[in-house]
């Protein structure tokens, strides 16, 4: 499709940024609208060799597992993994009848909202600092990447062991400054509430680099003359930030939020490490529950059903977000 418009090297198409919008002004030559009338067959055939690898990838990596997951969710799979036939939607019934399902569901929402909100607010501040010129900025920018470059499990393990009673360095510190009064420290990761809170802190920590850099990229696109104009009109720095800079960050922010929502919702390793030894279901989110179905109960079928439910939830959240915020709309 794009080949028709790219054929005419006119400045209009380039300025609009998208080949499609360049179409009508460029359509001066009579033949073109006629060809556009039936874009189907030949173009597609010509494009096929080029897009086949991508299609194979999408089918193999995205659609095939999705179909298998849905298929598994309607089967009865034995403990050792053998398929014993269809059970219709019984697995879904089991998921929703599980007495802890709704607490887990709401905890998942809290998890996503809190982590994403804090991540974005802190990242906005960090990006602002990193956008200013100061000696050693290069170095600080590098340091901010580290939590991203390090394995999430490793980062979480470091915090987890730091929080262990008896030998954890964080516990030792808290005991030394007198905040914890038992000499062996407090079992932060042994109690559902504190373990969940620490998981949120770790999740924010590992989400910061990506978000900061997305916003930093957004800041780089804010034109200097708009800031200058605001200055000349006598706007203070706070007002400039909220009325000039922030609206122009809309694109970067909305992408960052969208990707973070999906990422945080699907995050397993942090909670798995931090809350793994806690009995019961008082610190679980949907993702760790899927894991527990597989690991502890060997119910691959029910786990698949819950995965499908999680999948639907993510799509609903994203659809609502896209509808309400319209993240891709230009400012």
């Amino acid at each position, binding site marked *: 499709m794009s080949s028709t418009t790219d054929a005419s090297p006119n400045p209009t198409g380039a300025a609009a940024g998208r080949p499609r919008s360049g179409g009508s002004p460029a359509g001066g030559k009579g033949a073109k609208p006629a060809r556009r009338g039936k874009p189907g067959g030949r173009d597609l055939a010509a494009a096929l060799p080029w897009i086949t690898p991508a299609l194979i990838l999408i089918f193999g*990596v*995205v659609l095939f*597992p*999705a179909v*298998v*997951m849905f298929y598994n969710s309607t089967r009865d*799979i*034995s*403990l*050792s*993994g*053998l398929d014993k036939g269809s059970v219709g939607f019984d697995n879904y019934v*089991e998921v929703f009848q599980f007495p802890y399902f709704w607490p887990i569901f709401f905890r998942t929402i809290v998890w996503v909202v809190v982590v994403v909100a804090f991540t974005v607010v802190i990242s906005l501040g960090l990006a602002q600092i990193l956008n200013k010129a100061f000696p050693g900025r290069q170095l600080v920018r590098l340091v901010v990447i580290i939590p991203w470059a390090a394995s999430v499990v490793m980062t979480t393990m470091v915090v987890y062991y730091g929080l*262990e*009673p*008896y*030998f954890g360095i964080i516990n030792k510190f808290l005991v030394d400054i007198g905040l914890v009064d*038992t*000499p*062996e420290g*407090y*079992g932060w*990761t*042994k*109690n559902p509430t504190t373990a969940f809170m620490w998981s949120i802190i770790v999740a924010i920590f590992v989400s910061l680099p990506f978000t900061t850099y997305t916003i930093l990229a957004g800041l780089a696109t804010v034109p200097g003359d708009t800031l200058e104009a605001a200055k000349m009109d006598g706007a203070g720095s706070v007002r400039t930030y909220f009325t000039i800079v922030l609206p122009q960050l809309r694109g970067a922010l909305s992408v960052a939020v*969208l*990707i973070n929502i*999906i*990422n945080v*919702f*699907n995050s*397993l390793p942090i909670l798995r490490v931090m809350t*793994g*030894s*806690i*009995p*019961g*279901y008082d610190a679980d989110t949907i*993702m760790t529950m*899927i894991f*527990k179905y*597989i*690991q*502890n*109960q*060997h*119910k*691959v079928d029910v786990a*698949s059903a819950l*995965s499908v439910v*999680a*999948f639907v939830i*993510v*799509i609903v959240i*994203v*659809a609502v977000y*896209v*509808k309400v915020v319209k*993240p*891709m709309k230009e400012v």
Partner: protein
Amino acid sequence: MKKSLRLGAAIALAATASLTLASCGFGGGNGSDGGDASGKTTLNMLVPSYSDATQDNWDTVIEGFEKENPDIDVKLEVQSWDNLESVITTKIQGGEAPDIYNGGPFAGFAADGLLYETKDVVSDDTYSDFQDSFLANAEVDGTAYALPLIASARALFVNNDLLEQAGVSAAPTNWDELLDAATKISKLGGGVAGYGMPLGSEEAQAEAAVWLWGGGGTFGDAEEITVDIPENLPGADQIKKMIDAGATQADPGSTDRTPLMEIFVQGKIGMQVGLPPTVGQIEDGNPDLNYSIVPIPTKDGSPFTLGVMDQLMAFQNDGDKQDAIKKFFDYYYSADVYVPWVQAEGFLPVTKSGAEQLKDDEALAPFLEVLPDAQFYPSSNPKWQATDGAFKSLFGQIQSKPAQDVLTEIQAQVDAS
């Protein structure tokens, strides 16, 4: 159209991200088949890691075996206990079951018709060399489907110095003495705990068995799993009594066994139930620790230990591999190969010839002594796997919930499986 395209793009993005987790289940197949071009038979073997040396210990066995049988190639895969069961499930689901598998529960596999009978994969000599009680524990409906591999028994490790400091003259033999001694040790302060009680997900079923069975309870037998029965209540109540009296470390419900044992080794815990390999662990970590090993205290002081037996099992993949598997097992269980292996891992042997050779080993003696009173998990019950999982994920709640509720919840999860 534009808008829907973008919505579509966003949804595709969401789909990709959310499927990353789901697609994790589809890895790990290596597609190796029975025989290869050179006519060699390949045996795939999946084992858990008992210690850091497990890989080397097996490699030694395999090397010796391959030297004697150049036409058989043994491929070893070592996994951690945490992952073992999900790995085997994934492999079976993908039609890539290993030929030889070393694990705990086997009845589920036998019920699905995946295993060779033990008789079919070992010679008569090897078969009759197994201790009868262990072999009986590997049976489903009177037919053995697994080969006993190692046994272990548990005993109470006691820190003599802490006991002395707390003014306790002798190691406890029953629950009242244990509660009393543990409370006194806990009162020493300085972060010292009287009794180390690991009810976290790592091995909650073991600590649960120590208490519930020690009070006359049971988890059931090959036919029926019985967790929610009155016989199990005294043990569960005693656990609560220990916790409420402050006789244990903090948060017993979510403390895992391995890290807690480290703390015992460092001399911060008065008493904790341990295994034969714990002896080696103390030797490595803190050889100066003044400790002794005594039988586990029970309600009335009658002798009891929790025996655990791990098994080898042979999956029916390909008819022509049966002979190769048989050769391997016969080689492995010969005393000259088997005894060094068991010794290196620090467990107890399951063969008569092995026990004969090891009876003078000092570190193992206290455990060999309690072995006759061992009770085993009902691991030949097809529901044992589910029971095991239910204990791991639920039993620790006893710290904050009434004992009866926890037992009921576990039973419900088992029945629903």
